[in-house]
């Protein structure tokens, strides 16, 4: 993320506010893709995997679509 100048704060900002745009099957679970603008107005696309047994979101990748 750092090499794309995207920080934890930017990812959290988008995850808290933006809708899940796509859900894909992923090894018996689901992989979610969310898309939205961060506090600087950049559009980010974030791929996350959720875990059922723990309150934890795994950020697989994130990139700016601008």
């Amino acid at each position, binding site marked *: 993320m*750092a090499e794309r*100048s995207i*920080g*934890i*704060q*930017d990812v*959290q*900002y988008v995850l*808290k506010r933006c809708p899940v745009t796509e859900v894909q099957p*992923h*090894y018996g679970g689901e*992989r979610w893709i969310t898309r939205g603008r961060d*506090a*600087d*107005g950049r559009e980010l696309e974030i791929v996350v*995997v959720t*875990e059922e047994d*723990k309150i*934890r979101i*795994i950020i*697989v990748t994130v990139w700016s679509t601008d």
Partner: protein
Amino acid sequence: MNCCFCNGAMKEEIIDRHEENLLGVPVVLVRTVVRAVCQSCGEDMLSIPDTSGLIANIAVLRCLLSLKLSSAELKFMRKALEMTGREFAALMETTPETVSRWENNSQGVGGYVEKILRQKVCRLLKDQAPGVDYAPEMILDMKIVEDRNRSGEASIPLVFEQVKFRRCGATHAERIWDVAPSKAA
């Protein structure tokens, strides 16, 4: 936990000292970050707990250190408050253009304005940072020191660890971020 790329089993270990750079603000996390390595494909993954709490702690602690805030740190403060440039400008009763100049290092923040900025950041985030002692006088009485060797970059790494903490009246302890003892740094 399984690998999110190949679903292989992962081996986890707690890292003694993890250095992270949060968009120009260096931080060291002691005995908290977990690294998981996939035994099949070798992909590794870092797990940082309570990132919201960590960001709030960094912001409050940095506001209580007398070294002048760099442009990167000013941007960090705005993002810690989850504000756009326009929202932050409204908070500081200035224009978005001025905030942009602060963050791009083309115009410094005056000492008086910086003290107000620090107070506002601490007031808004202190409840999320119970590990950092804050009182308004700490900033009021502060003499902000300018480091002439610095450009726009933040320099001093802040060191944190997670500890168990029970709030007054609470029945259960929670894990919070706390400033790590200096020997850990």
